[in-house]
């Protein structure tokens, strides 16, 4: 069994070649897809950024390794967040940050007088009647992410008591971290 065809002339052959290129590229791609290693889909980033999913270790690892993914995630988080605190220019590399401010609120870090190893994180909403954020998220410059659910505000103030070595607190005090209230 066989197929007999008349080869097209040169002009027509170039059209045939263009069709072949398309067919072959698709076939090659579909074959290569079987061995390809998939990454993190943007829909997965969105689920995490929007809070639909709260635990995704694989995603957190990928964020630490992939700067483009982190940039996408931070931009997305910024969009879905109640308030976004960008990186802050540091006066010196040793200086830790104790105050962040946006149009909507301020975040202050104050040591506890009773417990030297603890600090207060105080979030003050500029409009006490505004709906308050539900979580605090930090994105460090190395891509590592920390987050914490927030208690309900009391008269426009949300207060957290954290240990000094708390990872979220350290990120919050770091100039190069971005902070999000969602």
């Amino acid at each position: 069994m066989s197929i007999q065809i008349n080869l097209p002339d040169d002009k027509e052959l170039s059209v045939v070649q263009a069709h072949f290129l398309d067919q072959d590229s698709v076939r090659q791609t579909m074959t290569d897809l079987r061995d390809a290693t998939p990454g993190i889909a943007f829909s997965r980033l969105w689920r995490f950024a929007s809070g639909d999913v709260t635990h995704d270790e694989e995603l957190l690892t990928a964020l630490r390794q992939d700067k483009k993914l982190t940039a996408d995630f931070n931009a997305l988080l910024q969009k879905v967040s109640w308030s976004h605190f960008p990186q802050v220019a540091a006066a010196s590399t040793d200086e830790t940050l104790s105050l962040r401010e946006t149009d909507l609120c301020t975040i202050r870090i104050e040591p506890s007088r009773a417990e030297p190893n603890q600090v207060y994180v105080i979030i003050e909403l500029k409009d006490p009647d505004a709906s308050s954020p539900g979580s605090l998220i930090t994105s460090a410059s190395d891509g590592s992410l920390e987050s914490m659910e927030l208690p309900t505000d009391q008269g426009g103030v949300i207060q957290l008591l954290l240990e000094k070595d708390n990872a979220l607190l350290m990120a919050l005090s770091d100039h190069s971290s971005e902070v999000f209230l969602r």
Partner: protein
Amino acid sequence: MEIVEATGHVLEAGKSSELTALLATVADATAMDGEPRFAPKTCHDLARAIVCRKYATGILQLCHLVNAVDACGSGKDRWERFFFGIDKVRGTAIRAWLTQTVTENDWRRPGFELDSTGLHMAYGDGEFALGYGRMPFLTALLETVIAMIGYEPVDQVFSNMTAQATDQEEIKNAANSLNRLIYDWLRDHLPGTQTAEKFEAIVNFLKSNGDKNSVLISDENILKFWQQQNNGHADANGDFRTFRSAVGGFIDFLRAVETGSSQSSVSYARSLGTDREAGEVDPMVLDEDAPAGAWQTPLAQLDSPPADAIKFLNKREREELDFLMDCGPLAIDLPLSVLRSDVFGAVQARITQALRRKEKQKHVLNLLVCDDAESYGQRTERYHDHEQHLLRVQKAVLHALTGDAIDVEEVDTQRDPAGLPEDADTTNVVSLFSSKAMSDDVRQEGEETFKHLNRKGFSDNDLDDPEIMEGFSVGAGALVQARDHLADYLVVLARLQAADEDLEQTFSTDQEVFKTLFTVMYGERK
């Protein structure tokens, strides 16, 4: 004998390019329940649109869709909620989302309307319509575009567009901005294609084996071509290392000749409209990349909504029928090429996998000699099994579509065998079974088969689900096409079996051929 540095070559060949990894990411994306977010057909269409650079229409449609969802959603992340908040991206889910959102919030801007076919947009300079069935592809396209160029540039284009989208011109400008960004990205990432060389390799081979104008493509020619490409021949082309890629190359070549010739273009040209029975194409779901009239594997329809809600074929059955179905009618003219590809192509896949996994040399050497290859007789038996399975599934579908719960008289009158929702798209529903003509025996057999098929979609409860019923209606046509094609192929194999050199003799000869070449390709004497 030892395994040569072929391992490195295989590893290199198997390494994913950034584009491939990106497409794989979209194909691998899962819904919350772990099921694929997109239907396989959507991912296939996406790959085709990107690698063939035929995404411009899709990008324009995407921009219109973004404009519409921006006009009906709530919150700052309106378009993101639509594209990424819908878990399993199917036309029905999208329609439900849009309907619910518009019901709850109404349109924020005028000029938009939903109906049973899709989304209609009225601009100052004209109208634009988009079917629900197209939207999953556009969602997958958006995921891909963001993965390519990043979220912020895409968001910026959409923000600018939705701020002033009163005319289609503004939508076109946004689409052009995205097209430029995609083009730039692809310029650096679309693999340096050797396709032109592959094309020339096939043409030169055919010319050297035929006269100036008339050339012959046969099973023996394809095997000879693959041998020449991989045994150190001067014209060898590294892209034809697998036998399946060589067969695929000739299949693509024949299709390109068919598509490229003006004669076939005229004979296959279809008019635009919505009367599918008359061979017309619905512009709302127009697949602008598929050559008109070209063979489409029926498995693609089974992979697509609504049929993909039912497990007509399991993974193994699907894989074993994939290449045969993909080759379509050309498999009837090149039966041994398909058989060789399925049998020895599978051995070659195991060899490359073993090399990639750095498995023990002894194991690889055992593979090279092809002793474990399935014989052509055994393979034919399996094709028979698949054909019988397809028949059983057809019977079960018959029961699903004409079961007791359905008034058969009414069904025949209305040509709506599935009891579909009144607003369901029935243009692609094939009326396969005339229930009036069905004997009780056939009906009973269908019912028995349905009960014994322990697969997703084949339970009595599923028959109450309108989406499943629509899946049966649409899938039924693809099942008939698949089984007919398989039956035709089995007839050809039976003829080969009855020939002077039967299939077992052919297998023995081929076994030596493949063993020799695999050893050249993947093994070396000390």
